[in-house]
C-alpha cells in the first residue's frame, strides 16, 4: 500500500479498505526502517498519530476534508511548523520551535493531511547535494535498490552510496523511499527538481507568486518557491490545487482568477508545441541523459506534437548572475540571526559585537558564511552597480528570452533536469559546494530567474540503475497545462517503482516486505 499514489490511497481510505491510523503507522515504521537514509531530521510520531486518528474519525463518518485527508506527508526542515523544531539543518536554529505554521503547511493540515516529519537539507538550503547538513548527508534510496546494488555487488553499502541531490534531498528521499506520499521542498535554483530527478520522483516548482512563501525560511526571496514532491504527476496537480492561491501574509502572491485546480480533461498532445533549447546541450551533459532527452523529444514528435529547436541565448550567464543575487539576498536575510531573539547564542558575552560575531561564526557553516561575506561585498556602495545591478539586468534578459520563446508559440520547453544520474557521495565531495552548485543547477536555475513553473519527470534508469529525469518548463501561471504535458509523458515512459535490495535493507521487517515493494499500478 505504501508504494501507491495519493489518488489510490485516498480512495482506499474513503472506501474503508485502509484506516488512516494504520497507514500512518506504516509510514512511521518505514521511516524507522530507512533511518540509514538520514532523510528525516525530526519525526513527529505522536502528533502524526493524533492527526491520523482525527482523519480516521472524519473518514469513518464519511466526511473527509478532501483528497488529502489522512494522507501522510513530510516537510523540508526550512518550513516553519508550529511548536515543531525547525532547524534549516543548521546549528544556528537547533532547538528552535516556531510559534506558527507556514501557510503551505497549514493548508495541508487543514485538508487533514498527516505530518510525519521534517526532512533533511543542505544548511539553509544552500547546496545541491543535501550533503552540507549539520545532521550529516542524506542518502539516495536508489543506492539500496536491486538495480543499483547488482551493478556493484562487492561494494559495501555503507561507503558506496549516491547522493540525493539537493537541497531538498530529504524530502525527495522520503517520497522515493515510500515513507511519505508527498513532501514539501523549496526551490530557489533547482532545489526541488534536482533531488526529484536524482531520486526518481515527480518534483514541481510552481510559478513564483502562485504559492505563499509565508513561513518558508528564505534563501533568495525573489526566487524561492515551495516545491511539491510526489510519486505521480496527478498527485502533484492535486497538491498544487490545494496549495495555490493568494495569501495576504505574502504580498508577492498573486490573485489569479479562474485558476485551474486539477488537470484538464480535454487534452490533445497534437495541439502542443514543445521547444528544445539548443543552449541546454551543455558541457558535462552525460551521454545517457542526452539519449533520454532525444528519445522523449521523438516520442512527442511521433505522437503528433510539434517539436522545434529554440534559443535562450542568455542562459549561459544565469549561474554567475544567480551567484551574485543569491549571495546578496543571503547576506541580508541572514543578518537577523544574531542570537538575541532566538536560535543559537554564543557564550561569549564580553560585548554585543563579540556576541554577534561568535554567535554567527559558531552557528553557520562554512558555505553560509562564505555566501554572507560575498553578498556583503556585492552590496557595498562601490560594488553595487558592477555586481548587483548588472546581475539584475542579466536576470531581466534571461526572463526576456523565455518570454520571447513562449510568445513564438511554444507551450512547454523540454530539457534535462540534471547533467547525469546521482554521483557517489565520495566523488561528489571532491569538489566544494560552490563548484557543485554551479554545475548542478545549470538546467534548473534560469527558470527561477524568470519565475516560471517547471517540473522534473522521472524518465528512465541509467546503466548504473539510477534515475534520470527530464524537465518541462511552462509559461507563467500555466502550471496545470504544463502538468498535463508531464502527465502524458509519464504515461508513455512507465518509469519503474523502486525495488529495494534485500541485503541492503537493514532491519527489514519481513512481513511488510511484499507490500512495500508492490508495483505502482
Amino acid at each position, binding site marked *: 500500500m505504501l508504494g501507491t499514489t495519493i489518488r489510490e490511497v485516498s480512495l482506499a481510505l474513503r472506501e474503508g479498505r485502509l484506516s488512516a491510523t494504520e497507514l500512518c503507522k506504516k509510514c512511521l515504521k518505514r521511516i524507522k526502517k530507512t533511518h540509514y537514509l538520514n532523510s528525516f531530521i525530526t519525526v513527529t510520531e505522536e502528533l502524526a498519530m493524533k492527526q491520523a486518528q482525527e482523519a480516521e474519525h472524519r473518514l469513518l463518518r464519511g466526511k473527509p476534508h478532501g483528497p488529502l485527508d489522512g494522507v501522510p506527508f513530510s516537510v523540508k526542515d526550512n*518550513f*516553519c511548523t508550529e511548536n515543531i523544531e525547525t532547524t*534549516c539543518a543548521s546549528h544556528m*536554529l537547533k532547538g528552535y520551535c*516556531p*510559534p*506558527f505554521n*507556514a501557510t503551505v503547511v497549514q493548508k495541508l493540515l487543514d485538508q487533514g493531511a498527516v505530518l510525519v516529519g521534517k526532512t533533511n537539507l543542505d544548511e539553509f538550503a544552500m547546496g545541491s547535494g543535501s550533503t552540507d547538513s549539520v545532521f550529516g548527508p542524506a542518502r539516495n534510496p536508489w543506492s539500496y535498490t536491486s538495480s543499483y546494488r547488482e551493478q556493484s555487488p562487492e561494494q559495501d553499502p555503507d561507503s558506496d552510496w549516491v547522493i540525493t541531490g539537493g537541497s531538498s534531498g530529504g524530502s525527495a528521499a522520503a517520497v522515493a523511499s515510500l515513507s511519505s506520499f508527498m513532501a514539501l521542498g523549496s526551490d530557489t535554483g533547482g532545489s526541488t527538481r534536482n533531488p526529484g530527478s536524482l531520486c526518481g520522483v515527480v518534483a514541481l516548482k510552481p510559478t513564483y507568486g502562485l504559492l505563499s*512563501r*509565508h*513561513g*518558508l*525560511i*528564505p534563501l*533568495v*526571496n*525573489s526566487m524561492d518557491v515551495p516545491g511539491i514532491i510526489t510519486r505521480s504527476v496527478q498527485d502533484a496537480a492535486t497538491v498544487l490545487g490545494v496549495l495555490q492561491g493568494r495569501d*495576504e*501574509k*505574502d*504580498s*508577492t502572491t498573486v*490573485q489569479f*482568477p479562474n485558476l485551474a485546480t486539477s488537470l484538464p480533461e480535454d487534452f490533445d498532445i497534437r495541439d502542443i508545441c514543445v521547444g528544445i533549447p539548443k543552449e541546454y546541450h551543455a558541457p558535462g551533459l552525460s551521454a545517457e541523459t542526452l539519449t533520454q532527452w532525444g528519445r522523449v523529444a521523438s516520442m512527442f514528435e511521433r505522437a503528433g506534437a510539434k517539436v522545434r529547436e529554440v534559443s535562450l541565448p542568455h542562459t549561459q550567464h544565469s549561474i554567475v548572475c544567480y551567484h551574485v543575487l543569491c549571495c*546578496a*539576498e543571503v*547576506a*541580508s536575510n*541572514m*543578518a*537577523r*540571526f*544574531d542570537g*538575541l*531573539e*532566538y536560535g543559537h547564542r554564543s557564550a561569549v558575552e564580553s560585548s*554585543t*559585537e563579540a556576541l*554577534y560575531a561568535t554567535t554567527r561564526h559558531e552557528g553557520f557553516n562554512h558555505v553560509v558564511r562564505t555566501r554572507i561575506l560575498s553578498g*556583503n561585498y556585492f*552590496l*557595498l*556602495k562601490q560594488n*553595487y552597480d558592477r555586481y*548587483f545591478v548588472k546581475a539584475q539586468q542579466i536576470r531581466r534578459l534571461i526572463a526576456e528570452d523565455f518570454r520571447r520563446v513562449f510568445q513564438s508559440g511554444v507551450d512547454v520547453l523540454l530539457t534535462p533536469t540534471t547533467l547525469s544520474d546521482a554521483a557517489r557521495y565520495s566523488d561528489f565531495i571532491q569538489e566544494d559546494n560552490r563548484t557543485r552548485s554551479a554545475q548542478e543547477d545549470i538546467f534548473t536555475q534560469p527558470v527561477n530567474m524568470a519565475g516560471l513553473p517547471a517540473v522534473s519527470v522521472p524518465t528512465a534508469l541509467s546503466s548504473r540503475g539510477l534515475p534520470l529525469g527530464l524537465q518541462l518548463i511552462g509559461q507563467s501561471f500555466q502550471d496545470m497545462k504544463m502538468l498535463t504535458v508531464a502527465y502524458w509523458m509519464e504515461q508513455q515512459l512507465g518509469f519503474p517503482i523502486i525495488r529495494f535490495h534485500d541485503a541492503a535493507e537493514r532491519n527489514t521487517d519481513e512481513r511488510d516486505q511484499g507490500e512495500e515493494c508492490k508495483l505502482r499500478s
Partner: protein
Amino acid sequence: MSAVFSCVTPRSAVCAHLDPHDRFSPALRVTGKRAGLVFPLLIQGSSGLFFCFISISPQLCGVVGLEIHAQIHSNSKLFSSSRVTFYSPPNSSVAFLDASLPGTLPVLNKRCVEAAVITGLAFNCTINRKSLFDRKHYFYADMPAGYQITQQRLPIAVNGLLNYSYLGGKKRGQVMSRRVRIKQIQLEQDSGKSLHDEQNSQTLIDLNRAGVGLMELVMEADMSCGDEAAAAVRELQLILQALDTCQGNMSEGQLRVDANVSVHRPGEPLGVRTEVKNINSARFVARAIDYEIQRQIKVLESGGTVVNETRAFDNKSGTTVSMRDKEGLQDYRFMPEPNLPPLFVYEGVASVPAGVDPAQVVLIDRLEAELPELPGVRRARLVEQYRILPEHSFTLVNEDGLVDYFERVIQNAKAEPRKVIGWVMQELLSNLHQQGLKNLHVHQWPMTLSAVFQEMWKTPEKTVRQLVKELDLGLVSDQEQLLKICQRVVDTHPEQVKAGNKKVLNKLMGAVQKETKGRADPVQVKALLEKMTS
C-alpha cells in the same frame, strides 16, 4: 549655485539669500532666485550686508538642513498587525515580524501609506504614483532583522515646500517669512528601544516601538540659523498635528529632529557638515544649531578643520559633543526589499486598473478632498476675519486649543475681536504660562469669560471684579471646598486614578473644573489631585 548665509551673531542674525556670482554686482540681487523661488529681502539695516559685499573674505555663516522622523499616528505598525502603543509593558506589542522571526514577511499598512500621501499633499509634494522599498543594513540590538525597511531609491513623495515664519528682526517683533524645500518624504520602520543597565552591564531590548511607521522628511539645507530651523520644525509639527498623521510630541519621540550643520563663506563651496542628534524640543533645535554653527566657526577661525561626524546635543550644557561613532565608515549595503512589490497609489477611481479593488488602494483625490484647514490658511483666515495682527494669528495657532477658545469667546460674547485678542495675548497667556499650564484643558473658561465680556459691554462702568462677584464667577480657592470636590472626583474615577499618569491628572483636573464651572484655582487643584493620586 546660490548661497545662504547669516552674518554677525547667529541668534538674531540677519539672513539674506544671494547668488554668489552677483557678489560684486551693484544690482544687489538680494531677492536672488533660489531654485525658482524668490526670497523676500528681510534686512533691517544694510551695514551687515554692505560689509559682506565689499569684504574680500566674507563672514562665515551657517547652512542648516534637517532630517525629521515623524511617527505615523496609526493603530497598527507599518508592516505588521501589532498595535502601536505608548506606555505599555515592554515587548507586549510585538508581532512575529517585529521580532524578525525567520519566515515572516512584511505586509504594508494602508493607513501608513495614506498618512504619507496626506502629508505629502499638505507640503505640495509630487506624490510618486509608484514608489519602492529598500533594505538598509546595520547591526543594532534594537533592530532585530539586521536591516530597516525604508524608501531609498524611490520615496513616496518628493519636491515639496514648507512655508514658515518666525518673529525676528529688532526686538523680535517682525514676522519673518521663509520657505524650505522638502526633498522627500519616505516611509520606513522605527527601531526598538535599548535600555542600558550599566550596573549589570546588560542591554535590555524593548521591541514595542520596532516596526512602527515613520515618515522621514528630508529638508534641504535652505536654513541658516537656529531660529529658522526651530520655526520650520514648529510649523511642521503644527501641520502634522492638523493632519493627524503624527501626534508630534517631541519629548515622547513622536517627532525626532536631526540637523545637518555646516559653515562656509558665501560663494564658496559648502563646508564639511556634522550631524547633530538627540534634540528633543523645538527650543533645543535653535540652541543646538546655533551652538554648532559657532563651534564650527571657531574651529575654522583658529585654523582647524571641521570633522564629518555625528554629534549629540546635551541640553544641560547647551553644547554638542562628538558621538565618536563610525558613521563615516558605515556602508548600509542598500538592496531592494524583495518581499514587497512596488507601491502604487492612484489619482482617483478612474485610474485604478482593472482587476484591482479600489477599496484596497490609496486614492489621492479622496485624500486631497479631506485635507483639513492647515495652520497657514488658518492664520490668514484669522487675520482676515477678525482683523487681528499677523503675529497674533501665530500665537493663536501655535498654542494648542487657543484658536477654538478665541473663536468661542467671540461667538458667545459678541465682543470686538481686537479687544478679545489683546486680553488673550496678554492676560490669558501670561497667566497660563505663570501657572505652568501648557494647554487649555479647561473648556468651561470661554463661557465664563464670555459672560464677563458681555456684561462689560452692557455696563462699562462696572469693574471686572464687581461683575465677577455679581455673576458668581469668582475663583474657588477655598482649600476645604476644593478638597471636597477633588475627593469626589477621585472617588468617581477609580479606573483613571489606578492608571496614575500625567494624562490622567489632566483628565481629573478637567472633571474638577467641570464641577466648578471652571472656577477652581488650577494650582491648588493640581496640588491636591497629585497628592490624592500618588
